[in-house]
């Protein structure tokens, strides 16, 4: 390994952070470069992440010790299959999203554009750190950086409602952070270390202590606010509905980083506690996941605002990810990780479509889709493809991941959860098909003549839409990385 490849794990965290600090300084002297600098930084990070992915795929997980000091004294970054896969997905979607972003962003005005892109860079850097870090306190700090960037992004929304949504998000998120901090304190004082691997080695003999159990419970409760797991999803609809431009996509990606952190806490840190069956953590989480699926889907049907509808749909998908990973079998975990990827692709595409519809035609509600299939064929095409993936129509990306989770549930004898997933598919089809139906089979409104955006804006959307379908056909490509990731996480290599 050359000097550069040796330091790749820290580079993918540092490049966005350094760019985030430089961006306001550069923008002070040269105006109008904010988006280009962001593109270059995220592109460079993606390149590093791809190099790291090649390295990990060739020779296994790469561990990086900050300043060369090994744990327990130093801070470690562990780039395993799960971390690097999600990292590449987040960066690729992030890059496409920034490519799509209209410059200047009409909603938020000129001077705030610099702040907007700074927050995006901070969020991207923090997400990279969250998915690969192996130190529980570093995880907390990175979650906070991500949270601050997200609060700022949401509050930038055009009218005052963005601010209100941001404040609501901030209150709930900060309470979650406080819980995470107490949980870390409990685990630290029980084990004497902050490193996740070392913690997992020390935990089994003391796993019956109330301190450890309370610590893990607090950590999971805190992370639930960050990932929007039912019933702590209540900030999501408002935050998504009033966030400006591409901010909902970044928020979707942030949820995925939080889910990776949750998987790490459950499998890497508290895995030993689960295996000795001290608490029915798995059944509690699976139940929460199933409840999230049902309640959020029903709420989604009742929404009129499309972005709120998408937010509740995200809530249901997060429920399914949690359900998949709490079944505790290899197939369940694989399905959960695949669902993180497919849902990120499809939901990013949907939010970009929602932004296009808002800018080109002023559409915010589900009643305004009349005849859009004729007037905006490409946008509605992408919208329909992403919707197909979210619904889980056979052979799309969403279908494959749902099949994995449902199979895992059936294999473990949990028929009710397989039924929940089927029911969820029907509910999702219900609320997406009424939009698609109205778009393709109703006559267009003659008074307004909306049209597709410029080709530069269309290409990222179409790429995401095609990817969200194609991943179902080419499921073996991500599976090559997801399978070792799941095996590495499960105790005993998943056998």
């Amino acid at each position, binding site marked *: 390994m050359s000097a550069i490849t040796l330091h790749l794990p820290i580079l993918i965290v540092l490049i966005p952070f350094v760019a985030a600090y430089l961006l306001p300084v550069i923008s002070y002297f040269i105006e109008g470069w904010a988006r280009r600098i962001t593109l270059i930084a995220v592109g460079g990070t993606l390149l590093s992440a791809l190099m790291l992915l090649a390295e990990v795929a060739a020779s296994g997980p790469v561990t990086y010790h900050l300043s060369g000091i090994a744990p327990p004294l130093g801070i470690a970054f562990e780039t395993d299959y799960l971390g690097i896969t999600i990292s590449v997905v987040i960066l690729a979607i992030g890059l496409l999203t920034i490519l799509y972003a209209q410059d200047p962003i009409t909603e938020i005005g000129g001077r705030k554009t610099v702040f907007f892109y700074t927050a995006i860079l901070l969020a991207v850097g923090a997400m990279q750190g969250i998915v690969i870090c192996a130190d529980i306190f570093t995880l*907390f700090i990175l979650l*906070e950086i991500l949270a*601050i960037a997200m609060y700022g992004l949401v509050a930038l929304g055009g009218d*005052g409602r963005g601010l209100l949504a941001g404040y609501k998000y*901030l*209150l709930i998120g*900060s*309470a979650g952070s406080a819980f995470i*901090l107490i949980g870390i304190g409990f685990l630290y004082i029980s084990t004497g270390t902050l490193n996740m691997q070392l913690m997992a080695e020390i935990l089994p003999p003391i796993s019956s202590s109330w301190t450890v159990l309370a610590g893990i419970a607090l950590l999971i409760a805190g992370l639930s606010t960050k990932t929007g797991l039912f019933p702590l999803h209540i900030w999501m609809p408002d935050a998504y509905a009033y966030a400006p431009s591409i901010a909902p996509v970044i928020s979707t990606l942030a949820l995925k980083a939080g889910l990776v952190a949750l998987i790490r806490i459950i499998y890497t840190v508290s895995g030993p506690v689960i295996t000795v069956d001290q608490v029915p953590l798995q059944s509690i989480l699976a139940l929460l996941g199933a409840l999230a699926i049902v309640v959020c889907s029903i709420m989604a049907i009742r929404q009129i605002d499309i972005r709120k509808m998408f937010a509740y749909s995200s809530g249901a998908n997060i429920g399914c990810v949690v359900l998949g990973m709490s079944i505790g079998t290899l197939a369940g975990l694989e399905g959960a990780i695949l669902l993180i990827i497919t849902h990120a692709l499809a939901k990013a595409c949907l939010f970009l479509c929602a932004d296009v519809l808002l800018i080109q035609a002023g559409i915010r509600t589900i009643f305004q889709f009349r005849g859009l299939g004729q007037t905006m064929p490409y946008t509605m095409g992408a919208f329909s493809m992403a919707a197909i993936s979210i619904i889980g129509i056979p052979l799309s990306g969403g279908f494959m991941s749902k099949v994995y989770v449902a199979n895992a549930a059936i294999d473990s004898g949990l028929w009710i959860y397989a039924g929940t997933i089927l029911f969820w598919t029907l509910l999702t089809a219900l609320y997406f098909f009424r939009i698609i139906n109205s778009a393709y089979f109703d006559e267009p409104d003659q008074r307004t003549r909306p049209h597709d955006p410029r080709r530069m804006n269309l290409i990222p959307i179409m790429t995401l839409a095609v990817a969200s379908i194609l991943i179902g056909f080419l499921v073996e490509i991500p599976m090559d990385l997801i399978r070792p990731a799941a095996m590495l996480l499960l105790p005993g290599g998943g056998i």
Partner: protein
Amino acid sequence: MNYLDPGFILGHYNYWVSIVLIMIGLYAMIAKRNLIKKFIGLNIIETAIFLFYISLGDVEGGVAPIFPKDAIDLSQETILYANPLPSAMMLTAIVVTLCMTALALSFAVLIYRQYGTLDARRLMEEL
């Protein structure tokens, strides 16, 4: 260990204080209607967590973990040091809390300018 032993309860008074403070903070966050008061509640929780962590780091009879370079007294081999790591972690957490507070207060200022009120119940009707 008997959890009802008065010595045990009194010996951990700083933990009790931090639990009581967390409860007060949670109450303020849930019950108060003013956005700034809600955030003050959160600040109380964070302060209670700092107290909790600093109590974790304390070792009975321990001294500050500073190694006196010029005065090495090797006869005192059993010198006890307090654990510096929780305090170091709290330094970082204080910075994080400061950022959050600054962000929340600036949001509150902007919300007040826009709506002329900080009453959470009335503001949430706007959403």
